[in-house]
């Protein structure tokens, strides 16, 4: 079977891979590329565990073909900490224990980061609506929402 050759950028690094036409971005991230921080939950775009960014846009990796990454800039959870320093959201999630089993956490962090980049001062309602596509099977939503709100407040303080 002939494979497609894809040249893309992942977390700022040039990456090339071969894939089947039907392979999802999630298949390639977790398989050949070994980037297993992006989780597979439902595989049908309902749970948000596989949230990544494509040219800065938040999407589900399970709903994207790996072939579509050609020429795009992909962002995954592995690129969230910079030079070994956790992103303020990651740090806050640790401090406030905003996770239980952790499976949803990478997706929640990617989604929360995308929110704060667009809206540095979200209301609780805006956070809850934005994160509606990230399911936490432990139902730890309250701590997650509070951690996002606190991070946003801290980041606004830092900017000031």
């Amino acid at each position, binding site marked *: *079977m*002939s494979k*497609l050759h894809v040249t893309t950028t992942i977390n700022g690094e040039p990456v090339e891979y071969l894939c*089947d*036409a*039907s392979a*999802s971005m999630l298949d390639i991230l977790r398989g050949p590329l070994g980037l297993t921080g992006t989780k597979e939950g439902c*595989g*049908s*775009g*309902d749970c*948000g565990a596989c*949230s990544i960014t*494509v040219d800065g*846009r*938040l*999407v*589900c990796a*399970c*709903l*994207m*073909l790996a*072939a*579509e990454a*050609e020429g795009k800039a992909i962002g995954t959870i592995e690129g969230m900490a910079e030079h070994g320093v956790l992103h303020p959201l990651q740090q806050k999630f640790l401090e406030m224990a905003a996770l239980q089993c952790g499976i949803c956490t990478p997706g929640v962090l990617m*989604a929360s980061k*995308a*929110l704060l980049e667009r809206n540095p001062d979200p209301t609780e309602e805006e956070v809850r*609506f*934005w994160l*509606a*596509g*990230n399911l936490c099977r432990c139902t730890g939503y309250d701590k997650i929402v509070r951690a996002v709100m606190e991070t946003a407040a801290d980041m606004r303080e830092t900017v000031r």
Partner: protein
Amino acid sequence: MTEIRYLAPSTLDEAVKAFAAASGAASILAGGTDLLVQMRAGVRQPGTIIDIKKIADMTAIEDLGGGAFRIGAAVSGATLAEHPTFGKAWPGVLEAINLIGSKQVQGRASPGGNLCNASPAGDSVPAMVAAGAVVTIQGPNGRREVPVEAIPAGPGRTTLTPGEIVVSFTFPKRPKGSGDAYLRMIPRTEMDIAVVGLGVNLVMEGGVVKEARVGLGAVAPTVLLVEDAAKALIGSRLEDAALEKAAEACRAACKPINDKRGTIAYRTKVAGVLLKRVAAIAAQRAGGN
């Protein structure tokens, strides 16, 4: 396992040729939020996937002035939400498109996909029907334009002929006093499929409705243009009697199914309730324009 081909043509002509040549064995890929789920479920097994997002026409948003817009069929809901002027001219269409799925789904899902997936409950469709949007279609026999309501033929079926691709939506100019709105009824607050969805588009002058269009979803095999409801609103000041007559027209148009989301009686009643609520929002917006 049979081999699937992936094509990402950069022109519409190439896409139409490839789509027509595959004679039914190909699927168009825009956002993929329906297609990839259907492929995974085994409901669809395309031999060729034609990704249309490298075609400039498909992803462009053109402000044509005076509230008129041309929207590429593969533009994502998130891109449309961030456009500086579209949501000001067509707030009802935008709110309908932005009700489709999560933020992640919004990053990919498109109005063209929502229309061609042909779910009777697709949120963007009643709003685009109410808006009077026109669909541009390109196929092996050239280009044609039809109103949005001419596309759905039944659940999962469209009136597109083999090889035809939806290219764009054209929204007409907005006269002074225009306003549109869309509401859907769901048992939750987010991330659900419409039990009833309803869009209203009004043009008002001195408090009197001059033009009206009503699109109704999730209560029949296809999204409906409810002309009798529009007739009841035109010429009125949205008095209770006119609203009740329009609500009755919406209830009369319903041919819903019973399912876990709502019974026939419930969906029918809600269609009337939504007409009144959506007309009120559209009128308020018209007043501000």
